[in-house]
């Protein structure tokens, strides 16, 4: 292979993984669209200017905290409280980053800032699901391009639907009740189910689901965080017996 052919080959591998990451994120795009529109509508109804809404989607890029912030702004909450709320609502991303760290630790600082910025619930789900599959050498090597593809697809989708909401949101009042967010549920099921074949993971999922249901009325995603904490504890407790027996050999 000549040098030019080699470069072309590498470029195709990168673009191939980028496209695959974007493709695997498509159901999430459908699920996020109504939320982007609803966010745009909320901004129009708040004391903010429409361009503030787009600025928030472009720079903050974290759906739940954007929703909560526009609600707090509408009720004239102070800036520090909104910043603190943003901090708490977004804490779960630290868990996502810690989980995906082994797959990005070798990258340049620029890549790591970029992928960190693009991290969302949806991209975490897709990328974590990708790493659960048996990957070949080149898929592993260019997995950050897959991550980038998923992140860029979500990011441009979020910008587009924020804009649509800002411009036309008031024309579609029934948007919340169409059930488009079920696309996210179906995708998550497809990612979760194959992981439930070992008892600790199955029990962890059941515990997390139960507590998430029971604690769903807690504010600022605290119910979600507690549920994950309980689920992880259950999983660790159940795998400890096998770990200790292995260590004692």
């Amino acid at each position, binding site marked *: 292979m000549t040098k030019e052919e080699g470069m072309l080959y590498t470029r195709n591998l990168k673009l191939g993984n980028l496209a695959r990451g974007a493709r695997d994120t498509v*159901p999430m795009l459908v699920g996020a669209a109504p939320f982007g529109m609803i966010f745009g509508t909320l901004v129009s109804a708040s004391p903010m200017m429409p361009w503030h809404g787009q600025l928030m989607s472009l720079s903050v890029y974290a759906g739940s905290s954007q929703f909560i912030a526009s609600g707090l702004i509408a009720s004239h909450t102070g800036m520090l409280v909104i910043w603190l709320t943003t901090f708490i609502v977004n804490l779960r991303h630290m868990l996502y980053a810690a989980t995906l760290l082994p797959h990005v630790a070798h990258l340049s600082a620029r890549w*790591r800032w970029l992928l*960190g910025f693009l991290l969302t619930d949806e991209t975490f789900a897709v990328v974590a699901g990708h790493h*659960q599959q048996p990957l070949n050498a080149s898929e592993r090597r260019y997995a950050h391009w897959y991550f980038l593809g998923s992140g860029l697809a979500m990011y441009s989708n979020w910008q587009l639907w924020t804009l649509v909401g800002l411009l036309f949101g008031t024309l579609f009042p029934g948007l919340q009740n169409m059930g488009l967010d079920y696309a996210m*549920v179906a995708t998550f099921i497809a990612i979760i189910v194959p992981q439930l074949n070992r008892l600790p993971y199955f029990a962890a*999922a059941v515990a997390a689901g139960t507590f998430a249901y029971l604690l769903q009325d807690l504010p600022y995603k605290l119910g979600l965080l507690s549920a994950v904490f309980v689920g992880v504890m259950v999983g660790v407790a159940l795998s400890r017996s096998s770990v200790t027996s292995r260590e004692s050999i």
Partner: protein
Amino acid sequence: MNFTVLILGMAIITVLIKAIFFILGDRLVFPAWLHLALSFVPVTVLTAIITPMILSPHGKNLELHLRNPQLLASLIAVLVCLISRRQLLTIAVGLMSFFFFQWQFAG
């Protein structure tokens, strides 16, 4: 309130939370128990996000009955995933059953 300052503050807080582990990552060494704990994060987070959406799609009340399209479609999606082991098929069948049940029960 200066909304631009508010929004940029939110942006800085958010990107620091999201990226801090990625940035410090190669200098941090996680102990084995933390690696084990983190391996449970995907399955617990995703289950915790969707369970309330399935069991109480309208907020407060438990809707554990067969006229709940989210619940029915999710049971079908789990079955399809267990039998076929194919992601795309699971998503497609899950979504189609959801919209079918939603349309059926609306009438």
